[in-house]
């Protein structure tokens, strides 16, 4: 970056500083937009130092990136409101300036390092905040950026703290500060045990810095604690891998389960399966668009609304495909491959023409975003819900097939069409329903996948091969096989990945499938027959 001007500026700042100190919050805020990020950092520090109770608000708005300067009257304002129509109110006086044109104000820029500073500043200001959540946040930011100056501040806060969770956070923050500073050995050893109990990677990081401590006792304690933590984390690592495997498995299951019906049960090599999944994803997108524009309040419900619609859309198209094409091809499964491939091309192009070729944004509703810590492993909500969703879909499907009359008819038709027909089952109708069911489930998969993957016309293509692998590996015609197949492949993949890297892992899994099929030519859960298949 420009070195010379920067130098001059910072010198200027130094000379200027004493006056600045004397400045009121108004002047400081007015000074915010000027100069480089470093200058801004200085001003922010001073704002925090003013102790003015409006300072907190200023910093929070700045952190949120809503602090702007009006070009018209160069006032510093908070921007609020939606998208293209912005409204401004004075950050200090709260006076409302009404709507501002999209390029009528310029943002007070913050970058990552500034954000960190601001967060720390806010932290120190909110250590005694009435809201425990805010105090917790404060304690955590203190933990992330330890500052020996804060030691007694934290100590006081910790002493005064009622909420146990916040108290622990404060204790940990304090421990970091202690380890960073040069206090008594006892204090440090105590701090170490606090870290030892925290037991996560951050804790280990803090401890490893304490390893080369002058005091042998401290060093020893730190070393022991590090060893302990690493041991724990190895175990958790395994758990994490299993979890990743399950999560990947659930995705595979979702992608494959519809195919397990259209292909596994009906024997239609349904190459358009992936596109049916894609349609589900686009339905979700459409629903979210509608919700965003009309009733934003419902956003968290978008998926629940999208799911049945996706089922109907994909299912409906599935029925159309079956009635329009597939039904002419029973007994000619390879022709179904051909026709459905053609259909998949058309569906891709259709979506491309309607929604455009680029990715569409499908947001995560609040209950599906973020993650929670389970012991030492992170579990992301969306993947957890997808796992639940996958199992739920599986259960429902199983119920439909085994316990409902339509399910009975489906099995009857697929086992012996002629006989079923003689027994007065409308085989044509059952075929349509069966295919529709498989397609509909593919649509449901699309709803889930839209949460973790691109929503683009290529969505389907990226899953079709895997889906077939899963169904065949599990044993076509056996829903349970699909379940077992999906999860075993998922977990295998995730245990390989750390050693081999993502690509090789995938290759190895494929090779494994090839070899496995040699051993069991009809898949994992093969239906063994003894009659001569002439």
């Amino acid at each position: 970056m420009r070195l010379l001007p920067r130098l001059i500026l910072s010198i200027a700042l130094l000379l200027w500083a004493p006056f600045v100190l004397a400045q009121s919050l108004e002047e400081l805020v007015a000074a915010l937009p000027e100069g480089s990020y470093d200058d801004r950092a200085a001003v922010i520090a001073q704002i925090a130092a003013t102790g003015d109770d409006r300072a907190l608000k200023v910093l929070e708005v700045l952190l949120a990136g809503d602090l702007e300067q009006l070009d018209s009257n160069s006032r510093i304002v908070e921007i609020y409101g939606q998208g293209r129509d912005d409204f401004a109110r004075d950050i200090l006086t709260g006076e409302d300036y009404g709507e501002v044109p999209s390029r009528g104000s310029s943002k007070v820029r913050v970058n990552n390092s500034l954000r960190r500073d601001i967060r720390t500043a806010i932290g120190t200001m909110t250590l005694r905040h009435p809201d425990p959540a805010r105090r917790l946040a404060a304690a955590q930011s203190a933990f992330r950026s330890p500052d020996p100056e804060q030691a007694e501040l934290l100590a006081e806060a910790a002493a005064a703290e009622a909420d146990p969770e916040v108290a622990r956070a404060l204790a940990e923050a304090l421990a970091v500060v202690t380890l960073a500073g040069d206090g008594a050995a006892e204090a440090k050893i105590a701090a170490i045990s606090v870290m030892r109990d925290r037991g996560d990677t951050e804790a280990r990081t803090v401890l490893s810095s304490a390893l080369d401590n002058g005091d042998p006792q401290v060093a020893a304690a730190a070393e022991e604690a590090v060893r302990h933590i690493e041991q724990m984390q190895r175990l958790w690592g395994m758990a994490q891998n299993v979890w990743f495997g399950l999560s990947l498995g659930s995705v595979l299951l979702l992608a494959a389960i519809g195919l397990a019906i259209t292909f596994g049960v009906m024997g239609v090599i349904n190459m358009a399966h992936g596109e049916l999944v894609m349609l589900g994803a686009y339905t979700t997108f459409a629903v979210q668009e509608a919700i965003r524009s009309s009733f934003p309040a419902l956003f968290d419900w978008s998926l629940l609304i999208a799911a049945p619609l996706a089922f109907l859309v994909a299912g409906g198209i599935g029925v159309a495909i079956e009635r329009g094409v597939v039904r002419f091809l029973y007994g000619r499964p390879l022709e179904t491959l051909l026709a459905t491939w053609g259909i998949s091309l058309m569906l891709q192009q259709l979506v491309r023409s309607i929604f455009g070729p680029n990715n569409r944004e499908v947001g995560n509703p609040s209950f599906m975003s973020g993650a929670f810590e389970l012991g030492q492993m992170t579990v992301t909500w969306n993947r957890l819900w997808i796992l639940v969703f996958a199992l739920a879909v599986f259960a429902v499907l199983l119920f439909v097939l085994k316990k409902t009359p339509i399910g009975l008819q489906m099995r009857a038709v697929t086992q012996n069409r002629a006989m079923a027909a003689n027994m007065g089952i409308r085989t044509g109708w059952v075929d349509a329903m069966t295919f529709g069911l498989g397609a509909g489930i593919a649509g449901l998969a699309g709803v889930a996948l839209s949460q973790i993957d691109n929503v683009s016309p290529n969505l389907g293509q990226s899953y079709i091969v895997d889906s077939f692998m899963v169904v065949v590996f599990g044993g076509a015609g056996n829903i349970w096989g699909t379940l077992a197949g999906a999860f075993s492949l998922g977990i295998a993949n995730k245990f390989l990945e750390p050693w081999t890297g993502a690509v090789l892992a995938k290759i190895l899994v494929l090779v494994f499938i090839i070899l496995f099929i040699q051993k069991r030519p009809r898949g994992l859960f093969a239906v063994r027959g003894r009659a001569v298949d002439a």
Partner: protein
Amino acid sequence: MSVQLLLDGVNRSFDGFKAINDLSLTVEKGELRAIIGPNGAGKTTMMDIITGKTRPDTGKVLWNQSVDLTRSDEAGTARLGIGRKFQKPTVFETQTVEDNIALSLKEDRSVWATLFYRRSAEDSARIAELLALVKLDHVAGWMAGDLSHGQKQWLEIGMLLAQDPELLLVDEPAAGMTDAETMRTAELLRQIAGKHTVIVVEHDMDFVRALGCRVTVLHQGHVLAEGSLDHVSANEQVIEVYLGR
């Protein structure tokens, strides 16, 4: 007369279900033997075991007292001289009747031999003779798929004979035939017997009677009774389980 085929203490189960249960059976060279038994008696599985399609869990299957059939696959047993006819007639539908026979002729079955095979005069003669025997000479040029059910049965028998096997396993040949055809089939099998050993699996009692041969009754994968038809149909257990009264 020497023993053509010997099954001794053969067991085979599928996922827990005992299809063959300590089955022992001896068939003499040139003998004509009928095997009867209710559905699920293990008739087909027994055939599968003899022809090497299915391996027994325990027990031995001896060919000419020497060769162990449990070690060989379908093609292997076929090359030893065991021919098999399926219950549902299976011929090569998209090829001519003549080609069906030609494919079955006793020849070197290796890839190269077949690749460079040229049909010799005697082969042609043999084909003609067989076609005549199974009364299909007038449709020699047809696609096998266009034949009637009965004709397919006959064609298949013809294909069997073309292999000129020592042992023929015939699975319900009379199924779906008119009475006339049935009788002609029985007639044909009796002709064949002697030159070849023949094992017939059958439901149709009239047919079995028409064969007029030794009968083995199978039940739950086990030999229930053996002897002439009258003898076995007098047997209480047989009446119990099979004739179902």
